[in-house]
C-alpha cells in the first residue's frame, strides 16, 4: 500500500541569463556573478518552481496504477520522490512493503564488466541479497537469452542484449511495490511484450505497480486506474480508459488535433518547434474517427526557426498494443528535401490510403529531426489519437463478415480466382459423383 499525503517538491533555479558573446563581456560578468553569489540579495534573483504541487493519492496493495501527463508534468519527479532519490519539500509518503524502483534499464551496469559480473552488481544495487542473486542467476540469464555471452564485457553487447539483461535483473527483483518509469520505451516489440507480460504477472500475484509512461496503449493494458498529472498536480484519477481519453483530448477538445499556440511554449529547440498535429478525413475535416475504406491525412506544422537548416518531420503510428505499425518521414518528398528552409511555419501533410490500416485505436508520435548531424529537435508521444472503424457494409476488406479479423494492416488485395478444368472426377461430401 502507498499513501501520498500533500506532497510538494520545490526546485530553486537561478534566473536564466543571456549568453555572453565575447570574452571581453564575459569577464566582468563572471566577476559580477562571483560577487553576487556572496551577497545576501542572491535569493531574490532565484525562482522557485513546484515540480510537485500538493499531490495526494492512495494505492491499495495489488493495484496497478498508471501515471500519465505531458513532459514536465511532474511524473518523473513523483517517482523520484517515491523511490527516495530526492526528498519532498513538504508532505509525507508511506510505503508498506519492499520497494523496487526501475527508473532506467541498467542501473549500476558497468560497461567494462562482464554480463555475469553486472548481474550480480546490478542486483545488489537494486536491493537484492547476494544469496538471492545467486539463486536467481540462471533464471535471469535465461530470461535475457544471453547465455553464450555471459562472460563477455557488456560494452561488446548489442543494445538489445544489454537491455534484455538489464531488464531481466530488474524483473527478478521481487519487491512488493514496483515503480517503473518508461523502461518499456526501449527494445524490440517482442521484448516489450515480454516486459509487459512480466509486469502483468507481477500485478496478478498481488504486487503493487506504479507505472509512468508515454505509451497510452501499454498504460491501458496494464493498469485499471490512471492518474493524470499536469503542472505538478493531479488533475484526474480514475478508470484507465476515461482518464487516458481526457488526456488525449486536453488542450483542443478533440483527440485528433493538438496545437501549441505560442512558439516559446512549444516542444522543440532553437532550430524547430512543433506547432500543430491534426488528423483530417478525406473531406479535410478534423476527425477522431476514420472510415477504414477512406483515405485520411496526418498534418504536422512546425516552425523552422533558422535559415540553412533542413529539419524533417517524422510520424509514428502506434497501435493499442504499443506496436509501431509504421514510420514515415517528409524527406520522402525529394524535391522538398533539397529545398532550403526559410524561417517560418511549415505544414507537412502525409496521406494514408483507404483500406490500409486495420481497425482500432491509433496513436501518433510526431518528431522534428535533422540528419547529418542527427538531431532530434522535438519528439512528442501520443500527440493525437484516432479510431479506424470498419463498418462491415460489404464493400470493405472484411465484406459482410463481422467477427474477429486479425492483422495490423487490412489492405484490399487483388484476388484472381478461376475454376480449374479437370478430367478427374470430383466427389461431393455425400459421395455422389459431381461431374
Amino acid at each position, binding site marked *: 500500500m502507498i499513501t501520498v499525503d500533500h506532497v510538494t517538491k520545490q526546485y530553486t533555479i537561478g534566473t536564466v541569463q543571456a549568453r555572453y558573446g565575447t570574452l571581453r563581456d564575459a569577464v566582468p560578468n563572471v566577476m559580477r556573478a562571483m560577487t553576487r553569489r556572496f551577497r545576501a540579495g542572491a535569493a531574490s534573483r532565484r525562482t522557485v518552481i513546484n515540480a510537485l504541487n500538493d499531490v495526494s493519492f492512495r494505492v491499495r496493495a495489488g*493495484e496497478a496504477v498508471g501515471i500519465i501527463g505531458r513532459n514536465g508534468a511532474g511524473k518523473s519527479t513523483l517517482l523520484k520522490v517515491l523511490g527516495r532519490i*530526492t526528498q*519532498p519539500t513538504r508532505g509525507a509518503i508511506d510505503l508498506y512493503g519492499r*520497494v523496487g524502483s526501475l527508473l532506467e534499464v541498467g542501473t549500476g551496469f558497468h560497461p*567494462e564488466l562482464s554480463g555475469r559480473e553486472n548481474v550480480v552488481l546490478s542486483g545488489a544495487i537494486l536491493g537484492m541479497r547476494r544469496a538471492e542473486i545467486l539463486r536467481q542467476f540462471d533464471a535471469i540469464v535465461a530470461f535475457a537469452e544471453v547465455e553464450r555471452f555471459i562472460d563477455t564485457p557488456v560494452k561488446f553487447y548489442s543494445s538489445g542484449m544489454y537491455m534484455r539483461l538489464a531488464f531481466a535483473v530488474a524483473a527478478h527483483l521481487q519487491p512488493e511495490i514496483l515503480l517503473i518509469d518508461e523502461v518499456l520505451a526501449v527494445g524490440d516489440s517482442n521484448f516489450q511484450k515480454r516486459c509487459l507480460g512480466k509486469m502483468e504477472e507481477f500485478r496478478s500475484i498481488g504486487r503493487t505497480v506504479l507505472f509512468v509512461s508515454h505509451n497510452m496503449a501499454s498504460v491501458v493494458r496494464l493498469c485499471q486506474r490512471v492518474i493524470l498529472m499536469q503542472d505538478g498536480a493531479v488533475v484526474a484519477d480514475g478508470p484507465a480508459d476515461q482518464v487516458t481519453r481526457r488526456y488525449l483530448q486536453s488542450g483542443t477538445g478533440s483527440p485528433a488535433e493538438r496545437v501549441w499556440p505560442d512558439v516559446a511554449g512549444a516542444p522543440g529547440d532553437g532550430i524547430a518547434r512543433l506547432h500543430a498535429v491534426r488528423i483530417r478525413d478525406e473531406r479535410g475535416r478534423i476527425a477522431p474517427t476514420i472510415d477504414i475504406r477512406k483515405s485520411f491525412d496526418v498534418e504536422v506544422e512546425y516552425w523552422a526557426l533558422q535559415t540553412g537548416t533542413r529539419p524533417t518531420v517524422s510520424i509514428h503510428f502506434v497501435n493499442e498494443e504499443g506496436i509501431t505499425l509504421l514510420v514515415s518521414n517528409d524527406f520522402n518528398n525529394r524535391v522538398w528535401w533539397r529545398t532550403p528552409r526559410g524561417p517560418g511555419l511549415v505544414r507537412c501533410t502525409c496521406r494514408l490510403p483507404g483500406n490500409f490500416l486495420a481497425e482500432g485505436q491509433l496513436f501518433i508520435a510526431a518528431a522534428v529531426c535533422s540528419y547529418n548531424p542527427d538531431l532530434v529537435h522535438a519528439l512528442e508521444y501520443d500527440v493525437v489519437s484516432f479510431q479506424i472503424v470498419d463498418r462491415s457494409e460489404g464493400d470493405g476488406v472484411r465484406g459482410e463478415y463481422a467477427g474477429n479479423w486479425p492483422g495490423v494492416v487490412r489492405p484490399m488485395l487483388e484476388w484472381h480466382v478461376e475454376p480449374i478444368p479437370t478430367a478427374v472426377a470430383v466427389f461431393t461430401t455425400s459421395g455422389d459423383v459431381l461431374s
Partner: protein
Amino acid sequence: MNLPATSPQQPATSEIHIAIRSTRPQLSAELRELWEHRELFYFLAWRDIKVRYKQTVLGIAWAVLQPAMTMIVFTLFFGKLARVPSDGVAYPLFAYAGILPWTLMAAGVGASSGSVVGSPNLITKVYFPRMIIPGAAVLSGLVDFLIAAVGLALLMARYGGHVSWTLVGLVPVVGLILLLAAGVGGFLAAVNVKYRDVRYIVPFFMQLWMFATPVIYSASLVPARWRVFLALNPMASYIEAFRAVCFGRPLDWAGLGLSTLVTFAMVAVAVRAFRTVEQTFADYI
C-alpha cells in the same frame, strides 16, 4: 485475471514500512539501513577494483609498482643525496613503510571525495544509503594496500625489519587510517556535490598534508616545541605507529590516543555534513 485480493500467491502483509518525510531521518534509522545494505560496500569496492585494472598490461601489479617506484625516487633524493636521517633503519625500508600507509590514506581520500559526483547514474536512479559510496571507495584502496604490502615484506626481509607476532598491531593502525580517510573523504564528497571546487583543492591539499606528515622524514626530525602540532595530524601518529611496529620500536600511546580522538571527531563531522546534504544529492548532480 485473478482478483488480487483472492490470489493465493499474494504476499503476506509486509512488515516493511518506509516513511518518507520532508525532514531528515533519524541517525539510528540511517545506521540500521547502512547495516542492512552492508553487502553493497563489498560489491561497490569489488567493482572499483575490477574496473581499475581492466585493459592494463601489468594489471594489479601496478598496486605494488607505484609505491615501489616512489620509494626508489625518495631513496635517491632524500636518502642518498639529502641524507635525511631515518631512525637508524635503511632508508628504502623507512620510506616504504611511510609511503604504504600514506598511499592508503591519500588514495582513499582521492577516490571518495570524487565518488558521489562520479556516480550520477546511481544517485539519480536508485536508492540506497549514500554513505556507502564514499565508504566503498575507501575500502577499494585496501586491496591495493594489501598487494603493495608484499613489497614491504620483501624489504623487511632484505633490510631487517622486526618480524614477529607484534606485526598484528598493523591491523588496528590500518583500520584507523581507513576510518580517517573515510572521514576526510566523506566530508569532501558531500561538499563536492554543490561546490565542485573540491576537485581542484584535493590534490593540492593532499600534497601539503604529505609534507606535514613524516612520510619522507622522521618525526624525530621535528623540534620538540612543534611536536604538538604534529600530534594534531592523526596521519603523523599513524605512520609513526606503522613504522614502530615494523621496526619493533616502542609506540607513542599518548599521541596515538589523541589521533584516534581526532579521527573519530572527523568521522562525526563528516557524517553530520553528509547527512545535511545527502537528501538533495540527486538535485545537484
